[in-house]
């Protein structure tokens, strides 16, 4: 099952659902901030088996406070001021159907668990998650890939800002249902990973319950190149999977060579680093970063990096990046090292002075950073721990990916001890037969899916295909229901929406669109009025709340149409030609009307005038 040279690849696909939130009755969308903020701390607890998780210890070491922005779509549950309500039935059913479709064994009861996450992204300090299926498979062109589990979990809060040791999150996304599908490391290479990810996301989108937002699908890739499992987190584009795996492979290889050189130079014994205050050398520095740091009351700390000359950043070597990752975990913004100095405004003279103060050997590197002298112990510990791990080529950890800079350190891997039962939610019973029946009905291929959409909504295969590919099925369903016209709904989604956006240079959220359409429908007004209302809001002349009360969305009555037509005919000229008449009415009145009624009225007026 392993690919070339000990490579192992597995995937974890997360898809947000468009149902309500998982454990409260808030909507999944509508992330407007109310202005209320709360601040919190999290305290590490031990897991069910009495073992504390290493990822948890790491967070306690960081000692941070968290600030949460309250949003319109959040309640006491998200604020961890109330226990969870019962699980969202639609979300649970969707997860079970997906598990069944992936040939998983469904478990007799669904248990909600607490997965310890104390980086602040969950107000409670844990993420609620439930295992719904195990041991499935998905077929790919290069053989079956085993599915280890399908889970239904709460999405985390979105990080909005990091400021030193304080991190800010918005509560809007917290609690949105997320289906997590994990594969065994059966994936052969990066191309195969992309294919597998596409096949799995199809199964979820086929339910019509997948969220449409750009970040609704997120991938984690588990890779190992023989030096421990690396979890690459939160890759939002399926196509990025390929680049991300490649970048991590290269990092592993480069670290391997760097460490063997370092070993020859130092014996790779424990590193004992000594940080010292070197601020005096930079009193008159022109380096913006250092100057700003000193002005803010910080110091410049410097240290020798034994044996690391030329390994920090040259050729493929990037040990500097690893050390920067380490100091970032204790709240620093980074460091500057000897392979890139002079640079960043640090002059040759300053480097010379620094060198004579630190007196590194020829093979040694050195680095400086903006920090407080009082933080020396924490910085030293963080750097030494990082080096101790790397020199043994223990590369197992959780990393992030950014197309610009490649992969970067996030946190240690979380073990399986970090889970214990959510005692506030009872074990859930469900009807397995019902779930299996629903999963039988799901389309097997994208072609089948669009055929089904085309049949159900009476729209062309081509339109249905686009609707499915763009994951707009849920939107189509809602607009069709409101407008009682699925063809108009299709036209709106595929043409009008884009046209409005281009014309007015403004986009509306799906929630805003739906609320506008509903308000118009509630006034018993039809499609023309809906289009007019949307036009007014896109143009910024009305707000989503005010538009339904506007008189400009009321269609012209037949008398009003007659009056306008008479005026046009009286004025004569090219505007009164039959081919131009619709445009002329629009010019005279900003209000909506039915063009075919207008044409009939025109014809009968003409006929009367002819007599």
């Amino acid at each position, binding site marked *: 099952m392993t690919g070339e040279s000990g490579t192992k690849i597995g995937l974890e696909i997360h898809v947000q659902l468009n149902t309500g939130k998982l454990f409260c009755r808030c909507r999944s969308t509508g992330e407007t901030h109310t202005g209320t903020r*709360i601040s919190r701390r999290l305290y590490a607890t031990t897991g069910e088996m009495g073992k504390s998780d290493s990822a948890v210890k790491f967070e306690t070491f960081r000692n941070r406070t968290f600030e949460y922005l309250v949003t319109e779509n959040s309640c006491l549950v998200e604020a*961890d001021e109330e226990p969870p309500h019962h699980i969202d039935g639609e979300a649970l059913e969707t997860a079970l159907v997906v598990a069944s479709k992936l040939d998983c064994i469904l*478990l007799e009861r669904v248990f909600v668990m607490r997965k310890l996450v104390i980086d602040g992204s969950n*107000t409670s300090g844990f993420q609620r998650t439930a295992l719904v299926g*195990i041991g499935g498979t998905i077929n790919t062109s290069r053989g079956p890939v085993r599915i280890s*589990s399908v889970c239904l979990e709460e999405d985390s809060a979105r990080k909005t800002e990091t400021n030193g040791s304080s991190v800010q999150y918005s509560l809007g996304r917290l609690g949105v249902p997320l289906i997590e599908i994990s594969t065994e490391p059966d994936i052969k290479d990066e191309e195969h990973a992309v294919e597998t990810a596409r096949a799995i996301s199809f199964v979820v989108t086929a339910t019509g319950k997948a969220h449409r937002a750009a970040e609704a699908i997120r991938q984690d890739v588990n890779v190992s190149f023989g030096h421990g499992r690396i979890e690459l987190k939160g890759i939002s584009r399926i196509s990025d999977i390929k680049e991300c795996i490649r970048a991590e492979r290269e990092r592993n290889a480069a670290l391997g060579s760097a460490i063997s050189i370092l070993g020859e130079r130092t014996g790779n014994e424990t590193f004992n680093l000594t940080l010292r205050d070197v601020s005096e050398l930079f009193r008159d520095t022109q380096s913006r970063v250092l100057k700003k740091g000193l002005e803010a009351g910080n110091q410049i700390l410097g240290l020798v990096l034994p044996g690391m000359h030329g390994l920090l950043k040259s050729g493929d070597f990037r040990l500097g990046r690893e050390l920067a990752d380490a100091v970032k975990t204790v709240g620093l913004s980074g460091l500057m090292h000897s392979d890139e100095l002079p640079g960043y405004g640090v002059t040759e003279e300053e480097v010379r002075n620094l060198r004579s103060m630190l007196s590194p050997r020829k093979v040694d590197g050195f680095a400086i950073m903006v920090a407080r002298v009082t933080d020396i112990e924490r910085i030293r510990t963080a750097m030494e721990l990082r080096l101790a791990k790397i020199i043994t080529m223990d590369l197992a950890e959780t990393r992030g990916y950014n197309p610009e800079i490649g992969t970067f350190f996030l946190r240690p891997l979380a073990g*399986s001890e970090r889970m214990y*039962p959510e*005692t506030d939610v009872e074990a859930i019973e469900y009807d397995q037969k019902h779930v299996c029946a629903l999963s039988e009905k799901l389309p097997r291929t994208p072609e089948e899916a669009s055929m089904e959409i085309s049949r159900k909504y009476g729209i062309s295969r081509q339109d249905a295909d686009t609707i499915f590919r763009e994951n707009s099925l849920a939107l189509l369903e809602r607009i069709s229901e409101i407008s009682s016209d699925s063809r108009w709904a299709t036209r709106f989604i595929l043409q009008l929406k884009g046209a409005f956006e281009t014309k007015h240079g403004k986009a509306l959220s799906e929630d805003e669109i739906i609320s506008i359409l509903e308000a118009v429908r509630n006034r018993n007004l039809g499609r023309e009025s809906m289009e007019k209302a949307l036009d007014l809001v896109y143009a910024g002349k009305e707000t989503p709340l005010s538009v339904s009360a506007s008189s400009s969305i009321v269609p012209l009555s037949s008398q009003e149409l007659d009056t306008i037509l008479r005026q046009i005919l009286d004025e004569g000229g090219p505007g009164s030609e039959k081919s131009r008449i619709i445009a002329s009415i629009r010019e005279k009145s900003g209000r909506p009307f039915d063009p075919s009624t207008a044409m009939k009225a025109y014809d009968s007026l003409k006929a009367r005038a002819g007599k």
Partner: protein
Amino acid sequence: MSDLGSIKFGAAIRFRYRNTVLSGTFIGIENGIVTIKLANGYNAGFLPDSIEILEHSEVKAERKKEPTRKAEGAKISILSTGGTIASRVDYTTGAVKPSEDIDWLLESAPFNRNGSRLTAEFRIIENILSENMKPSNWIAIARKIKTDLDAGRSVVVLHGTDTMTYTASAMAFMFRSLSHPVVFTGSQRSSDRPSSDSFLNVEGAVSVSSSNLGEVAIAMHSSPSDDCISAMRAVRTRKMHSTRRDAFKPIEEGPMGKYSNGKLEMYGEYRPLSGESTLDDRLEQSVTMTYFYPGLSAGDFESMASGKKAVVIMGTGLGHIADDLLQSIRRLSRDGTEFMMTSQCIYGRVNPFIYSTGRNLSDAGVTYLGDMLSEVAYVKSMYVLGNFPADRFRELMTSNLRNELLERLKL
């Protein structure tokens, strides 16, 4: 096949389920469902007939931790009475139960960081959820507190939040004077979650216990944020929310002090400490409390009230109940039952002189208790009946003994 009943919690097991061999940790059997923690950390539920146990390990009995710790020269005692703050999850049943051990709660407290350690004595004096507290428990708790006060220690009491104001108010009345502060605290969000309010509540309570506060206090979150703890007068405080961290609010007054950013600031009006602690440890338990509602029948009312020494009536608005209960009150009063009136409104005072209903009740012998909180009135009448002659009851109930009555309600 092994017998499921012989497998112990925590045993490693291997089993077959629908032709798949799985492994995990045995948790238990409840309501006909076998719970097994799978290798991936998730709990999974199985019908007993659907699984075949292939093998399981034996589990050694766990070493029990010594539940109390004595600290030489400690200036503070932390007494646990049970409740959420001293609760842990029972992983066998999944239920939250009082814990026998509170050390873990204080391990991560900031006063135990950076090499320094709080010298405090920890003792478990009760282990009950607060809804199970009885007046007899209050007396026992008061006596234990007295021992610590006399030993020169201030006292932090860990208590369930549901009836914390009752117990704390009972302490407030029973201790005529305090030589060291007595501070109650608890937890609204269980201590087994990293976000629990327990940690900061204990930190705040410990800090308040170092002040010169001579009144029994409740120290709990001031807001949903983990940044401030209010020190509130026990006899003016009420639990006003079922789940929020800031559930406890002083009614019609502000807190006596606040603890924030590691600093305690006391600014309210309060009685300072005295040279010694005086405890009146008797409570008359023949007291009841009844909530008036439209349709409350004289029969139901009497079955609550008859034979009692005192009855607190939580009336509507200014302190009213239906006319048809007046007869019962007159009759029971003649037999020696004392009736008192408080308001269901919680905020604001009762007044018998605005409407004829109030005047009639007052004429029938009902004592109007101003803005005293109903729960406080209940506890206070037990105290007054237990420790003073019966003919002083009305006088003492309407006098301000522990700042439980406010003369001025501020806007």
